[in-house]
């Protein structure tokens, strides 16, 4: 669609700009301030230059947390995206079951995040939880509070439970927007199901899948409440993802400088990866 050049359009954007700037720019500048200074309390600050950034970038602890974070994000994307697409493909397109499916599937998305954590905690506890009890009864010595491997599995399973529906909803929206004529044409050409998926459904889902991957990437990188409530980052540090580590440094030890530097590095990683992904996926479009 051709757009008219109109500088007065800025007035339409102004309220949004004012609100978001208040919430984003002032706190961000506070973080930048902390990241460049050293404090011993009493509001006395000294210039620290890039000291904190060098410390954080060189620290084993940050590397470990970043490694766990990347592993977590990669794992949930590998599971949730194909699973979400598969479920969307298998869902009915018309009829009374569509609403039932959509409402039930959307339910996990609307549960407060700490309730998700608490729910999975009591679901997975080895003595009183359905999952934990069943696995132990089947002869698997499962205990997510003691065994790092089990903790990982539980955190991943919880995230798949919590967020796959978002991918399903987006993929499903992409699928129902495909006109019937496309399928009829494919039928006349004698296309196999795989060919229909590869050449009709997948291209039509490209836009919503881009959004799904982007949202899941950003949100899984930001995840804090659910694993914190479920495992508290443990056992040991095994499920301490970036946000949990950051809050430990900032509020637990009150090391504002390193925490601020870590925040900025963390934010930049998300920003840069999202921008690259977005730019690559939309390079053929107007914007």
């Amino acid at each position, binding site marked *: *669609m051709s*757009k*008219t*050049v*109109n*500088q007065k*359009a*800025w007035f339409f954007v102004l*309220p*949004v*700009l004012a*609100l*978001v700037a*208040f*919430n*984003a720019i002032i706190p961000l500048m*506070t*973080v930048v301030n902390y990241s460049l200074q050293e404090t011993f309390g009493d509001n006395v600050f000294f210039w620290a230059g890039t000291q904190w950034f060098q410390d954080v970038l060189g620290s084993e602890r940050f590397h470990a947390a970043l490694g766990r974070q990347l592993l977590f994000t990669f794992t949930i994307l590998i599971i949730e995206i194909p699973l979400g697409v598969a*479920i969307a493909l298998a869902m009915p397109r018309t009829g009374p079951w569509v*609403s039932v*499916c*959509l*409402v*039930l*599937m959307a*339910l*996990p*998305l*609307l*549960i*407060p995040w*700490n*309730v998700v954590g608490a*729910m999975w905690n*009591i*679901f997975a506890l080895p003595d*009183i939880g*359905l999952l934990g009890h069943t696995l132990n009864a089947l002869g698997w010595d499962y205990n997510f509070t003691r065994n790092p491997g089990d903790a990982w599995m539980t955190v991943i399973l919880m995230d798949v*439970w919590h967020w*796959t529906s978002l991918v399903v*909803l*987006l993929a499903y*929206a*992409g699928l*129902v*927007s495909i006109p019937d004529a496309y399928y009829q044409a494919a039928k006349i050409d004698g296309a196999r199901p795989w060919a229909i998926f590869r050449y009709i459904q997948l291209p039509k889902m490209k*836009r*919503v899948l881009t959004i799904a991957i982007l949202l899941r990437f950003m949100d899984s990188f*930001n995840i*804090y*409440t659910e694993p914190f409530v479920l495992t508290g980052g443990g056992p040991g540090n095994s499920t301490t993802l*970036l*946000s949990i580590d950051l809050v430990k440094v*900032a*509020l637990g030890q009150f090391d*504002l400088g390193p925490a601020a530097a870590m*925040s900025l590095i*963390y*934010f930049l990683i*998300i920003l840069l990866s999202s921008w690259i992904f977005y730019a690559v996926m939309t390079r053929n479009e107007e914007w």
Partner: protein
Amino acid sequence: MKRATWLVPTLYIIFLMLPIYWLLNMSFKTTNEILGTFSLWPQRFTLENYITIFTDPTWYMGYVNSLIYVTINTLLSVSVALPAAYAFSRYRFIGDKHLFFWLLTNRMAPAAVFALPIFQLYSAVGLFDTHLAVALAHTLFNIPLAVWILEGFMSGVPKELDDTAYVDGYSFGHFFVRIFIPTIAAGIGVAAFFCFMFSWVELLLAKTLTAVEAKPIAATMTRTASTSGYELGLLAAAGSLTLVPGAVVVYFVRNYIAKGFALGRV
């Protein structure tokens, strides 16, 4: 093969319902029964946990507080996002693309990064522990999302609609409120749904910005761990009740969810 496709969504929904069932199951048990015996359904069915929540103001006010700030946030986010989304979908202006991407970057910002400075900011302006503070803070991620969704819907409306209205002598305000907003009603519904959802489920900022007066239910729940040991039954009942507003909202927008995503660019 074609016959078995219903199995996939069915199995998935069973998987989704299992933890929810377990939570409901526990909410009808006493804490002693939860810790004492393992059973698939309550042996001695009790409503005690729910009665506690509905008779104790420190409990039920948590739900009221959450609903207040979520409502303020949804109204605020959607109403300021409407004109902005219109500007992005209809006009070209200096810095439009940069502004749009900058807005989206705020959707990416980890709440953990902003928690402390936002706490200092809202304390400094005297809004700490008010519903407004949480509602305003949540606009940080909800406004970008609302603008993004609404822009998609608006771009799906042909520009000829605008032009025809002006030819017919409508003023801009009149056109926007009387014609344009009803045209994209579905989009507004979807945007409001997402604002509601993300404000309702967020806890880190809501907890950081409140102490007593505006404390959200999700934060109230954390106290079950600290007072008299682990009151699991109460925790389960409180958790079960947090499912209700979401279920109600999703029921109302059920017909828009799939269509809504598809019509808009989102």
